[in-house]
């Protein structure tokens, strides 16, 4: 369980994995519900804002060398503040990941295992977490790096495989619900870039901390392209005026891909790749949660937590009684929670810590 360092490429893949896993489930559909035909323009717009946020985070973290946000919270407000911030981030990671896992497993159940209890579909993912928690962080990230190219290819293939079925007129009306819904309230779509939260935690793991700027900007740019591909696939393939809510919209999109009579039914292949991707996402989130808890409690080893956190994820994933509650949590609770934690709380802490540091420097002079 000894955590070792990761390269800047691995760090980029780690962050993009968070972006992608949300996209695979229902993120693209949620974005389309908010901004309709203007979603592609809105994504470019919020992508630029997310890029700005990533750069601000890089600038604010620069003064704290290889400290993460939990260490910085302790520096800013002492151990109690550190525990509060740690608790919020754990709640954020566990809450969003449990909901995403449950939603994905519900999709798996509908498509492949209609007679299997949801608990048994969740269990293999939890077993993966048990197993990976006993390995080092760098080996976990190497697994992510191995899966990542396949996921990238699957999304690009999904886009080009469906190209013949696209109606490009569906990008119009250009402003969707209206100017303010696209560019003012549409800023809310920035929750899609929740993977930025990883930027707060990766500095201690980096082999080359001086590459932080590259990691921040590249990961957001790759993530933006991913979003554009996924959202364009759903937008251009389905009619958007009536909100027909698919359990897994990209899975539905995959079922439209056919090359002649012999090359059909590719969706199980896509699903296999996406199962691996969701597994990778769960591994990353689980490791960060354990890492935060270890710092909060000053535990020497992560070993005692290796079984507890996966079970915690399983318990929370089983809490929603039905699919409508899962969708309600995702669209009405977690999207705002993400904005509050990642884009407000995180940056505020870093900003105040920087102010404190500047004040201390002035005083020492």
């Amino acid at each position, binding site marked *: 369980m000894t955590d070792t360092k990761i390269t800047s490429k691995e760090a980029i893949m780690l962050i993009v994995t968070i972006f992608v896993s949300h996209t695979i489930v229902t993120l693209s559909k949620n974005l389309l519900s908010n901004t309709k035909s203007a979603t592609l323009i809105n994504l470019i717009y919020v992508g630029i804002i997310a890029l700005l946020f990533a750069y601000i985070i890089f600038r604010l973290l620069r003064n704290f060398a290889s400290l993460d946000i939990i260490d910085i919270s302790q520096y800013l407000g002492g151990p109690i503040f550190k525990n509060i911030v740690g608790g919020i981030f754990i709640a954020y990671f566990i809450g969003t990941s449990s909901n995403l896992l449950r939603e994905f497993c519900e999709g798996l159940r509908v498509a492949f295992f*209609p*007679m*299997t209890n949801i608990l048994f579909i969740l269990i293999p993912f939890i077993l993966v977490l048990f197993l990976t928690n006993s390995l080092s962080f760098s080996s976990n990230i190497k697994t992510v790096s191995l899966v990542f190219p396949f996921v990238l290819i699957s999304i690009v293939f999904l886009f080009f495989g469906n190209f013949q079925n696209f*109606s490009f007129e569906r990008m119009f*009306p*250009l402003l969707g619900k209206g100017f303010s819904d696209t560019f003012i309230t549409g800023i809310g779509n920035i929750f899609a870039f929740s993977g930025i939260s990883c930027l707060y935690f990766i500095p201690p793991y980096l082999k080359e901390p001086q590459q932080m700027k590259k990691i921040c900007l590249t990961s957001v740019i790759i993530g933006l392209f991913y979003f554009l591909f996924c959202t364009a696939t759903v937008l251009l393939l389905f009619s958007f005026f009536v909100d027909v809510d698919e359990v897994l919209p990209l899975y*539905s999109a995959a079922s439209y891909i056919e090359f002649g*009579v012999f090359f059909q039914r590719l969706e199980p292949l896509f699903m296999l790749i996406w199962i691996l991707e969701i597994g990778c996402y769960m591994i990353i989130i689980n490791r960060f949660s354990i890492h935060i808890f270890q710092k909060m409690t000053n535990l020497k080893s992560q070993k005692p937590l290796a079984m507890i956190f996966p079970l915690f994820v399983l318990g929370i994933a089983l809490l929603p009684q039905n699919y409508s509650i899962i969708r309600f949590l995702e669209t009405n609770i977690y999207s705002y929670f993400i904005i509050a934690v990642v884009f407000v709380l995180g940056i505020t802490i870093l900003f105040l810590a920087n102010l404190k540091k500047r004040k201390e420097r002035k005083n020492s002079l």
Partner: protein
Amino acid sequence: MKHLIKVFCFVIIFVILTVSFSSSYLQVNLDNIAVVVAIGIDKGENNTLKVSFQFTAPSSVSESGSSETAPTILKSIDASSISSAVNLMNSHLGKELTLAHCKLVVFSEELAKEGISDIIYTFMNDAQMRPSCNVVVSKCPANYYIENSKPFLEPLISKYYELFVSSNQFTGYTANATLGKFFDNMICQSCDSYAILGGINFQLSKNAQEGFSTKESADISNSASLNGSTSSENVGLAVFREGKLVGELNAIETLAFMCIGNTVKGFLISVPSSQIENETLDIYLTPSHKTKIDVSFVNGSPFIKIHSKFSGQIRSMTNDSNYLDNEVLKRISEACNRYLEYVFTQYLYKTAKEYKSDINAIGKTSLKLFKTISQYEDYGWREHFQDSFFDVSVDVNVKSSSLLSDS
């Protein structure tokens, strides 16, 4: 000891997962399923549906390599809904019906006129149904259509259902209408659905061609001039508006639909010969550019300009043909232009004024004229489409005949 505990845990987990996933596996096990290749839906008695399922005979799977046509089984049942019909059939057969290999859904004309949107929604909600499944509206009872759908050149019925519309790209006499497209057009506010028009050929007599408007141009399923034994035929289109059948298109109107929708790769037309009176020339046309659709609004009504370009090759040849003369080719091209402009205009006005159905999704082209969705919804494309007026221009360039140029 530690190793033993690990092995024990692994065995326990393996057993639990195997048992829990086995129920899903058993449901799709080949021994427990009945593979449905086509579904026919008719109006039943007392507000029910008469649902017919066509299955492949279990032995036919292993006989696919033989030259004989694989046998099929057709079973019908009356039920209040599709799901109930599936359930009742499961009970009747003692097997689980799987729709994962269903290639064809046939609706009777009578049922389609009353509306099939609920059934389409139910099919799209089914994880097993493929969006590539063909949708047919039959002019005769759906179960009768399926019963008489016999592949002549294919040993497997499922392959026949998959490929029977493939000729549309080279004839333009029927369109590829799949369940996914039907559903998408049905929920879209700027387009309407269509389905393949099917029927049974009762007419065994040969019909002669009649002048300008040839017989095959007027062909429609149930009335075609094919000789041979009774079989299903698929010519023309069924036009829907908000999930209800509102009319049908014959072969040449379907060709117009496909040309405007850019889905045809080539087609044959017959135009009057410029050299011999009362004679027609067969010309094979291929689109040289995509059809351009331009929508504008004049006094609140859509003004739709359509421009198509084709290149042609003369297929007819007589002993006094002269296709090396540029003037002759020009005259033939102009005749083609006039003919296609007439056909396209007739088709467009028929769908707009008579059927009030935008099956070519011209409304999508108008989307760019609106800034916001609310503006588009306030305008109401569906309501205004019937007020449309059209300006059709066709540019045919007949280049040559085939192997012989002059005789």
